[in-house]
C-alpha cells in the first residue's frame, strides 16, 4: 500500500503535475469542459445505437450501417474524455486514487469499454441480431455507461 502511495506521490511531484496544479484554475476548468463534451458525444452515440437496437427508432434502417456512422463520436469522445481525465488525475493522484467514486468509475469504465469491443461489436455488426443478445447488450451498455457518468459526477462529493 505504501509503495502505491509513493508512486502516486512521485507522480504528483512531477513537473507536469506541478504545472497543471499550479496553473490558473481555468486550465483545470478547460480539462473539465473537454471531459464533459467528450463524454456527451460518446454517450449520445451509444444511446442512439441502443435505441435502434431496441427497435424504438429507425426500424427500417440497417443496424450495422447506423452503428458504424457515429463511431468517430464514440472513440473521439472517449479519447477527449480520457486525455482530459488523465490530466486531471495527474494534478492530484493521491486525492483521486483512494476516492471510492473514482475507483468505482474506473472499474465500470473498463467493463463498458470491454463490452463495447466484445458483445456490443458482435451484435451491432449483424443485420438481425438475436433479440435476447440484443436485449442483454442494451441493458449492460446503458447500465455501464450511465454508471460511468453517475459515479464520475460523484467524485467531487465523496
Amino acid at each position, binding site marked *: 500500500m505504501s509503495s502505491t502511495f509513493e508512486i502516486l506521490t512521485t507522480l504528483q511531484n512531477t513537473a507536469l503535475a506541478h504545472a497543471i496544479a499550479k496553473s490558473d484554475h481555468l486550465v483545470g476548468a478547460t480539462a473539465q469542459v473537454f471531459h464533459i*463534451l467528450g*463524454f*456527451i458525444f460518446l454517450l*449520445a452515440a451509444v444511446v442512439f445505437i441502443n435505441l435502434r437496437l431496441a427497435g424504438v427508432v429507425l426500424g427500417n434502417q440497417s443496424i450495422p450501417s447506423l452503428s458504424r*456512422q457515429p463511431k468517430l463520436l464514440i472513440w473521439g469522445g472517449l479519447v477527449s474524455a480520457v486525455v482530459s481525465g488523465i490530466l486531471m488525475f495527474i494534478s492530484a493522484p493521491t486525492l483521486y486514487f483512494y476516492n471510492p467514486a473514482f475507483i468505482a468509475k474506473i472499474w465500470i469504465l473498463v467493463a463498458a469499454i470491454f463490452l463495447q469491443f466484445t458483445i456490443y461489436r458482435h451484435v451491432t455488426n449483424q443485420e438481425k441480431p438475436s433479440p435476447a443478445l440484443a436485449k442483454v447488450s442494451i441493458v449492460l451498455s446503458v447500465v455501464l455507461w450511465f454508471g460511468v457518468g453517475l459515479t464520475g*459526477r460523484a467524485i467531487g*462529493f465523496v
Partner: protein
Amino acid sequence: MSYIVELAEHIQATSLGVALAESSYAFPLIEGIHLIGLSVAVGLLFLIDLRLVGVLFKNVPAIDLLRQLRPIVLGGFAVIFVTGVLLFWSEAATVIVSPAFVAKFIFIAIAGLNALYFEFKLAKQPEVLENHEVLPTNVRYAGLISLVVWSLVIISGRLIPYLP
C-alpha cells in the same frame, strides 16, 4: 439585481434547498442525472444536427430522424429541467452571481429560438419533408447554430463553479 440575489438567498434557505445541499447522496445523484439527461437530450440533438449539416446519416431521411427522436429528446429535456430546478434550489444564491450561469441561460434562449424557427419555418420546406440527402442551406445553418450554441450551453454550465 440586489432583489434577485435576495430572492435567490430565500430559495436556497428553504427547507428543500437546505435538505438537498446537505444530503451527501441527493446532490451528487441529482448532478449525475442532470448529466445523463443532458447526454440524451442535447446528445441526440447533436446527432440530428450532424444529419442536418450533412455529416452523418446521409442515407437516413432527416424527417424520420426528427420525428422519431423527438419524444426521447423532449423526455431528456424534462429530466434536465426537473433536476436543474432542484440543483438551482439548493445553490441559488451561489450560482446566480456567476457570469457563467447568466451566460448559460442566454445561450439556452438563443438555442430555443433557433429550434422554434427551425421547427415552425425551416422544417416545413419540401426538401426536409421529402427525402433529400442534402438539405437547403438555411437548414444546414440551423443545424450548425444548434451544435455550436448547445455546446456553449454545456461549456458555460460546466464553468459555473469556476467563475464565481
